[in-house]
Structure formats: structure tokens, C-alpha cells
């Protein structure tokens, strides 16, 4: 079954508001990456988190990696219409049979209302 869960599946946001999407793994992750996919496009890499408790910021986006390296979050402040798209987390599992592969969450589809 799916080992990386992502919530919520959909997020309707008023322009200017904040929102958070969460990613949870049933097993410890070696690292986690976040991607953004615009409608009709392909996923584009945003950021990678490696260390326990790591926090990284990209302008209005704040990414966190949990202390146990099993969960992560993406927080967007002052949402803009350019934030529309689907945000995916992708974890690299720390299991011997998972070497070389990424486990993607189902994604959070973000719709922004002007």
C-alpha cells in the first residue's frame, strides 16, 4: 500500500490567505523532496530536505522536515494566483528494498480564488 500519504487532496484558497499541505510516511525517510505541477505540465522540483527538523524557506514557501523524518509540511503565505497547481512530496525510504526509488504522495491540488 501507499507509504507516503499527503493531505489534503484539494485546497481551495482565497487569494492572500495562507495554507499548509502535509506529508506523512509510515517509515523513516532518508530525505524528502517537494515538487509543483502546473495544470497540463510536468512536476518541477522545489526543494529537498535531508536533516531531522530541517526548515527551509523560498520566498512565501516554508518547508519543514519532522524530527523523526517521517513527516513534512509545505506552508504558503499570502497565496497568489501563480500558486495554482498540484504540490507533491516525494520521499526516499530508508529500507533496503527501496534503494533508488522515490515514493510520491498523492498530491494536494490547489485552487486559488481571486
Amino acid at each position, binding site marked *: 500500500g501507499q507509504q507516503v500519504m*499527503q493531505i489534503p487532496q484539494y485546497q481551495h484558497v482565497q487569494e492572500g490567505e495562507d495554507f499548509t499541505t502535509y506529508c506523512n510516511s509510515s517509515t523513516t525517510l*532518508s*530525505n524528502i*523532496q517537494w*515538487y509543483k505541477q502546473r495544470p497540463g*505540465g*510536468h*512536476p*518541477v*522540483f522545489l526543494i*529537498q530536505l*535531508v536533516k531531522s527538523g530541517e526548515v527551509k524557506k523560498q520566498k512565501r514557501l516554508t518547508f519543514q522536515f519532522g524530527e523523526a523524518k517521517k513527516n513534512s509540511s509545505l506552508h504558503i503565505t499570502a497565496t497568489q494566483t501563480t500558486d495554482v497547481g498540484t504540490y*507533491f512530496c*516525494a520521499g*526516499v525510504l530508508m529500507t533496503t528494498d527501496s*534503494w*533508488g*526509488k*522515490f*515514493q*510520491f*504522495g*498523492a*498530491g494536494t*491540488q490547489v485552487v486559488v480564488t481571486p
Partner: protein
Amino acid sequence: SQTIHQWPATLVQPVGSPLSLECTVEGTSNPNLYWYRQAAGRGLQLLFYSVGIGQISSEVPQNLSASRPQDRQFILSSKKLLLSDSGFYLCAWTQDTNQPQHFGDGTRLSIL
């Protein structure tokens, strides 16, 4: 710089027909290569990945297969397509799992 090429961009195929999607990477050597499928409005399902020539790991048992005849070439095939094979197919590469994945533009496959 590295680039990834995936073709065709769109494809309409009848049920029972064969399939061949090709992906090539330029500007790097010995990349990890991946095939994903994405149903409309859904997440990415890993189909196959390869860490070297001739090394293919299958994630989902189905009527698809993958091959890596050259270091930077990854091919997704089927002998007989099913209606359920419709979707958006994405190829990706990375140097290792501590590096970002870079995706091709994808192939939209419709089965009639």
C-alpha cells in the same frame, strides 16, 4: 547542461495495439531513470525504475514493460494496450536519490 527528451507528446491508440514510448537524457552519465503514470487529477504512480543499463525494477505488475538498451535511453513498451493504460506518462532522471528528479514533458496516452 542536462536535458531530458520524451516523445511523443500525445498518442491515441486502439485497444490491443502495441506501445513504445521513448525517453532519452543528455548531458549526464549513468543516471537513475524512472517511468511514472499519472491518471487525470491523480498522483504519480511509479511503474519502473533503472539504476543502470539492463537493470529494470518493476513496481506494478501489468501489461507494460521497460528496457534500457543504452545508458541514457529508457523505453516503455506494451504488446497489447488495455483501456486502463490511458494516462499521462512521465519519464524522469536523477543522478541519485539525494538529487532532484527532472521530468520530461510527458506523453498523454488515450486508448480507444
